[in-house]
């Protein structure tokens, strides 16, 4: 099953490679991993999306907890939670018809055009992975110049929190 795990860890050099090393050394799968410092600059927060049987997920959470740099973690999948991902996509727009089409679609998906040049629009879109997939599918693949996705960030709904 797919699991989204939030990890609070010391914002120290090497902490990220410990997590990445753990996943590769033990053969766990990583679909995406995002990390940035929190409002407390001594802590980083990481969101890991992974797949595995219940046994594997149990081992992943135990092994993560065992890392000395990991302060706390929460398997978001165990409760209601929100996931968001950012997509930046650059599209070729040398025909007016394409331009209009693209703007309309961007509106429908509640995205924004954030950069315009002679030949390209760059669009910003956030949402679940599925929504981003749907948007990319809706654009003529011949016109896509490049895409970049941030990987998933997640947070639990309501009172469930991950903090020190």
């Amino acid at each position, binding site marked *: 099953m797919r699991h989204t795990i939030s990890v609070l860890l010391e914002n120290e050099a*090497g902490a990220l*490679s410990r997590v990445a090393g753990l996943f590769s050394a033990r053969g766990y799968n990583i679909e995406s991993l995002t990390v940035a410092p929190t409002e407390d600059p001594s802590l980083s927060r990481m969101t890991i999306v992974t797949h595995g049987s219940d*046994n594997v997920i149990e081992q992943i959470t135990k*092994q993560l907890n065992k890392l000395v*740099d990991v302060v706390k973690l929460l398997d978001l999948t165990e409760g209601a939670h929100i996931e968001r991902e950012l997509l930046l996509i650059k599209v070729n727009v040398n025909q007016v018809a394409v331009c209009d089409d693209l703007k309309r679609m961007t509106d429908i998906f509640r995205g924004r055009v954030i950069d315009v040049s002679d030949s390209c629009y760059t669009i910003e879109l956030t949402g679940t992975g599925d929504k981003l997939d749907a948007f990319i599918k809706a654009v003529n693949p011949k016109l896509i110049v490049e895409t970049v996705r941030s990987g998933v960030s997640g947070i639990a709904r309501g009172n469930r929190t991950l903090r020190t």
Partner: protein
Amino acid sequence: MANEAENLTGAEIVVRCLEEEGVEYLFGYPGGSVLHIYDALFTRDHVNKIQHILVRHEQAATHAADGYARATGKPGVVLVTSGPGATNAVTGIATAYMDSIPMVVLTGQVPTTLIGNDAFQEVDAVGITRPCVKHNFLVNDVKDLATTLKKAFYIATTGRPGPVVVDIPKDVTAHKTTFEYPATTELRSYKPVQNGHPGQIRKAADLILSAKRPMIYTGGGVVLGDGSEELIQFTQSLGYPITQTLMGLGAYPATNKQFIGMLGMHGTYEANMAMHECDVLVAIGARFDDRVTGEVDKFCPNAKIIHIDIDPSSISKNVRVDIPIVGNIKNVLQDLVKEVQNNTRTVDEAALSKWWAQIHNWQEKNCLYYDHGSELIKPQAVIETLYELTNGDAFITSDVGQHQMWAAQFYKFDKPRRWINSGGLGTMGFGLPSAIGVQLAYPDRPVFCITGEASIQMCIQELSTCKQYDLPIKLICLNNRYMGMVRQWQEMFYDKRYSHSYMDALPDFVKLADSYGHLGMQITQPNQVENALKEAIALKDRLVFMDFITDPAENVFPMVAAGKGQHEMVLSPLSPQMPVERELA
């Protein structure tokens, strides 16, 4: 005056921190990046209580520190230089990691200004060691040095112990700061558990007392957690059979009648059969290693399992358990003994005596049988004789191979921390350097290193270290002219194609020992074994290298082959009790 903060260099701080930690021995080897630290050691030599032990290879420094730690329970401490010093130490760090041995390894590093420049003798020591340490640190600022070292010792010795590497750039050892050693340390991200969950312990007591065919299976965790006394009390209050892993030997006295031998790949018939047939299994400080379980799908098919361990990630890793208890072995066993005593149930004595009758039946197979009438020296006989001559009270270190298994099978350890071997990583070369650490810790106690002619050559240079520090270790080399364990597998599973397992061009070990300033002996006849051992043991102040020319064809039995269940053992083909479910031709 004592409170007045001192302004010290990083190198001086390193030495002072080790003094504060009560370090007795520092196992090391100098080089460019650690010269400031060596200088600080030199200038403080007259006041400090740390003795530096100069090994002949950095691998040996880590094994010696490891042996010291295993024998004493105190952390082993190592100092090596950057680059090749650090990489040479890696095997020993990994060895300690696999067996959860507390160790602090200080590696020199190139100056911070050169890190990342492919500088002379630069390796990413933190990167290289990351997968085989409990934790590691790179110290970028001399102001962090003392607190980092404090953390390193704290992490290495608490919870599930393990090696910690502290990588110290050369400029950090030159910079100065005020020295203050913190009395304690706290890490918000690292809080080892102490007590087990009372509810779980109660459930465990209920299950233990409901057993008809109970089995206690213990591992290295009992030794590491100093839980031997509690284990004896627990086991004896119940009267249940107990088996121990290779790493656990000695925590429960091997001469006690409830002990039915080691389990696993080369465990006794009775221990493996009892594991297979038991209905309640109490696993204590053991991790269900593949060398213990055999094929996991066939492991303990009828048992409800209780697992006590300090490391949550060990629980349900290889085998699902019914009642997990996370906690310090000592505390959990104390609580469990009380719960068992206060429980309304009592041991089912009728079922238990039936169970013991079954176990005695298995014991009749005499699974450790070997030919006592041989004209060649049988390796098992050497160990048995050694056991008798030392009253089972010696420190025994071992290398890796057949000799290691025979030592585990035939030397009956009654006390913990006497059996020192590399179980997890299986590192050939471990035996001699680890004996150095043990002999330094216990200068007046007999220390034997049981080795093979292949293993001993992996760290043989340490004979020189033994000379320098007058360490009267006795080496028992069971010389079968083969990498015996490899030869055994080739005989059994590769149709006797002995690919590169013959030890050709062996040195004359007697002359070799002599050239290092020690005494060498060669023993070729079975009837010389006892007297030779007596003679060597009597030489209390000399290292003796005993080269026993043994039967090259001898194999280790019983054996659970890879892919087999633990009940599917092969016994010695020579055993009068053969064939017993013999699956291998």
